[in-house]
């Protein structure tokens, strides 16, 4: 079909038996805004990486501007005008705005010497194209996230981008900044650029998209004209009818307060947080990135000292200055980033599970009880359905979902009173997700108090019996179990997270969509 800037045919990519992409085909027209939506791990990011030439697919063909590639490399991809702006933007923090915009072009042109006048000229031209001005000599680490995003766009434009991929560009932006960015994206479209826009925020998707492609479980569910879809049908296609997360019901009868946070503050991170939890409570904490939720979790775990307030476990005020203190006090944290904060990739599953429980598997003589360590690991592998030939396998050979279960096993083994899970299902396939939810609920049923930090609304609605919302370092809302069961719960959470009063009013709630 003429007018297609990109055609992908039957793209497949497998990682260790898991289909990251399963026979996906897609066309992107010149001058359209094409949104990719899907849950974490549904294959959107893999698709983008294939199109940029960063990963070679196992099967399939890519046609760019009429040239067909069996295996696309990054140089070809750039030459065909494909530019990707990843979530981290990949800017050089200590270099100036002008250098960041122009450097890639200078390199692409094979310039041997840096001509600062030319660098500035290129930067000015590109900024003019998006109708913005900026201090060209300011280092990147001194400008706002929104402006960094614009620098990344200008850099892409300087390389004659015809097709621009933007991966979650609005995550770290305020509402006003988001509007400004979306306006620029629409203007770029008017000038003939194709934009592939990936976002979790469905209201943004509806605002800009011409076409929406939905991914689920590595497969493409379908391409839709954005006018054909409603919020309801979009969510339905994203999650699929066969995935139904069981809703948690607290059964514990002991209503004494076991864990309490009283007026906990750290200015600039979180302010005046108050929480009361009983046995078997699952408290959700949600909010955008930077709202203070991670900072609060780290603080409870002894890594980000609070300035005032108290943490009380079983009636005793505890003072936690390190993760060691936290674990001893009965509080464990599953950190947000599995790769950098949790995994020991070349070590065995068994050693990964035991790492937070070394004192408890040490005998009186001061020796490690390797047999006990192994037995614990075998029990946990069975309990959490970790798929592995044995517990000696090094954890780097497992899929993301099984790695995550291994890390969860580590924290469950510490037998905490309060378990904080920060993003327990990020980058995890749907099947593992269901397993993980089941386990979270069963641990809570056995009496653990769980704090679940997440920005996935279905996850919160399925597992929590109360949800606290944070925005701009403050607690802005609290939904009780009864409120969570009402049909408007998802909308309320969404609007509290993003600042309330949004014009976006979806009509059909998430829970019904799943049923």
């Amino acid at each position, binding site marked *: 079909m003429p007018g297609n800037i990109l055609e992908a045919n039957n793209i497949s990519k497998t990682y*260790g*038996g*898991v289909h990251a992409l399963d026979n996906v085909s897609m066309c992107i027209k010149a001058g359209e805004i094409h949104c990719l939506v899907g849950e974490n791990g549904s294959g959107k990011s893999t698709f983008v990486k294939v199109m940029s030439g960063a990963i070679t697919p196992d099967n399939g063909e890519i046609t760019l501007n009429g040239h067909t590639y069996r295996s696309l490399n990054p140089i070809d991809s750039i030459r065909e005008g494909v530019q990707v702006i990843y979530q981290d933007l990949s800017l050089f923090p200590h270099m100036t705005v002008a250098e960041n915009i122009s450097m890639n072009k200078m390199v692409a042109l094979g310039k041997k010497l840096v001509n600062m006048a030319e660098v500035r000229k290129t930067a000015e031209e590109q900024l003019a194209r998006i109708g913005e001005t900026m201090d060209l000599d300011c280092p990147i680490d001194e400008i706002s996230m929104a402006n960094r995003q614009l620098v990344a766009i200008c850099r892409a434009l300087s390389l004659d981008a015809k097709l621009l991929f933007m991966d979650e560009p609005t995550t770290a932006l305020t509402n006003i900044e988001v509007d400004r960015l979306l306006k620029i994206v629409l203007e770029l479209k008017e000038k003939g650029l194709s934009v592939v826009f990936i976002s979790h925020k469905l209201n943004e998707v509806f605002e800009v998209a011409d076409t929406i492609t939905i991914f689920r479980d590595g497969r493409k569910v379908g391409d839709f004209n954005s006018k054909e879809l409603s919020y309801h049908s979009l969510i339905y296609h994203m999650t699929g009818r066969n995935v139904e997360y069981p809703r948690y019901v607290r059964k514990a009868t002991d209503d004494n307060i076991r864990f309490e946070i009283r007026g906990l503050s750290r200015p600039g991170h979180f302010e005046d947080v108050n929480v009361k939890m009983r046995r078997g409570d699952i408290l959700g904490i949600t909010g955008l990135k930077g709202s203070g939720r991670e900072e609060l979790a780290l603080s409870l*775990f002894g*890594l980000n000292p609070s300035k005032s307030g108290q943490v009380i476990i079983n009636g005793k005020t505890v003072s936690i200055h*390190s*993760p*060691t203190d*936290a*674990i*001893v006090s009965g509080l464990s*944290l599953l*950190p947000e980033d599995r790769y*950098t*904060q*949790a*995994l*020991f*990739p*070349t*070590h065995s599953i068994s*050693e990964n599970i*035991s*790492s*937070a429980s*070394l*004192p408890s598997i*040490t005998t009186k003589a*001061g*020796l*490690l009880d*390797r047999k006990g360590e192994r037995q614990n690991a075998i029990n946990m592998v069975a309990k959490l359905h970790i*798929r*592995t*030939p044995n517990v000696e396998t090094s954890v780097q*050979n497992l*899929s993301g979902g099984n790695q995550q279960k291994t890390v969860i096993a*580590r924290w469950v083994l*510490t037998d905490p009173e309060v378990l904080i899970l920060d993003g327990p299902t990020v980058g995890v396939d749907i099947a593992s997700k269901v397993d993980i939810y089941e386990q979270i609920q069963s641990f809570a049923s056995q009496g653990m108090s769980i704090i679940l930090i997440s920005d996935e609304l279905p996850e919160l609605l399925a597992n929590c019996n109360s949800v606290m919302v944070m925005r701009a370092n403050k607690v802005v809302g609290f939904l009780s179990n009864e409120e969570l069961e009402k049909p408007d719960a998802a909308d309320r959470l969404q609007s509290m997270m993003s600042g309330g009063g949004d014009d976006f009013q979806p009509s059909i709630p998430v829970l019904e969509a799943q049923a």
Partner: protein
Amino acid sequence: MITQMKKFIRQDTTLTVLLGLLIFLILLFGSILQDKFFSFDNIQSMGYQIPEFAFLALAMSIAMITGGIDLSVVANANMAGIMAGYVLTGAVFGLNSGMSDLTLVIIAILVALIVATLGGVFNGILIAKFSVPAILATLGTMTFYNGISTAITEGKGVVGFPDNYLSIGTSAPLGIPLVFYIFFIAFAVVAFVMVRTPFGQSIYLYGENRIASLFSGIKNEKMIIKTYALAGFLSGIAAIIMTSRVNSAKYNYGDSYLLQAILVAVLGGINPNGGRGKVTNVIIGILILQILQSAFTLFAFSPYAKRMIFGFMLLLIMVINFIIDKWGARSKSIAKDSEVVPQEAK
């Protein structure tokens, strides 16, 4: 049988390669040098020489397992040796203090061990508390300790130790040098500590991912200080062995041992990025290096050629390790697919 061997090779590629290399070298030099190589004298002299740098190599290995390095091992050993030397020559307690030689020897040994351990603790504090990268911290203390030794001795050797101190380095019960027994016991203890104690396990976990070990509630700072203190302690033993063998202590003794210690650790499969490597494999690395040393001596190579060869070897081993790693990763990922896929299909 063949499948068992394959399994063994895949399980510990480093050990297989090392054993292969060791046997190859023994056969090679044995066939060229024949009786000279297999003579009692040659083997016994290896038994004397091995422990000298083996302790430094062991200290280097545990520092490298944390992902760090200890460049100060030799300088620390020399400083400790000089302090002990002052005790032994009577410079500390006076020549006519009336203390028996044995008392002096015991005090000297304690001084060497304490000074070297404190040297290690200082390294550990710089690295753990002040976040100085290990390579810079220990480069600094290397120069610093060396400077202390040079300054207090004014570059001269401390000489003339009592006989019962010298017997540490020269006696050989049952024909095996005493220092070799010490080497053997110390290695067994350290290997055991690394594998069977929470301290050893923490060293490996920290070396692999220090943020994850922090999140696991491991006391990173304390553990690092303890590790470098242990490296210092082992340097202290090296100091005792060196000084008792040559009957003197000097600021620049054993300069070439620093490169050899790193060489042996890397040869023994200690990953310079941390988290991986076995102390037991380092022993084979030490044997290989010693066999090369002895052969070079028998061939009458100049010490300058030796340096060049060792430097080249270190580089070569790192390149070979890289290639083995790549090959290993590929064969593992193939193995993984064939193991995991049927499970997924269930």
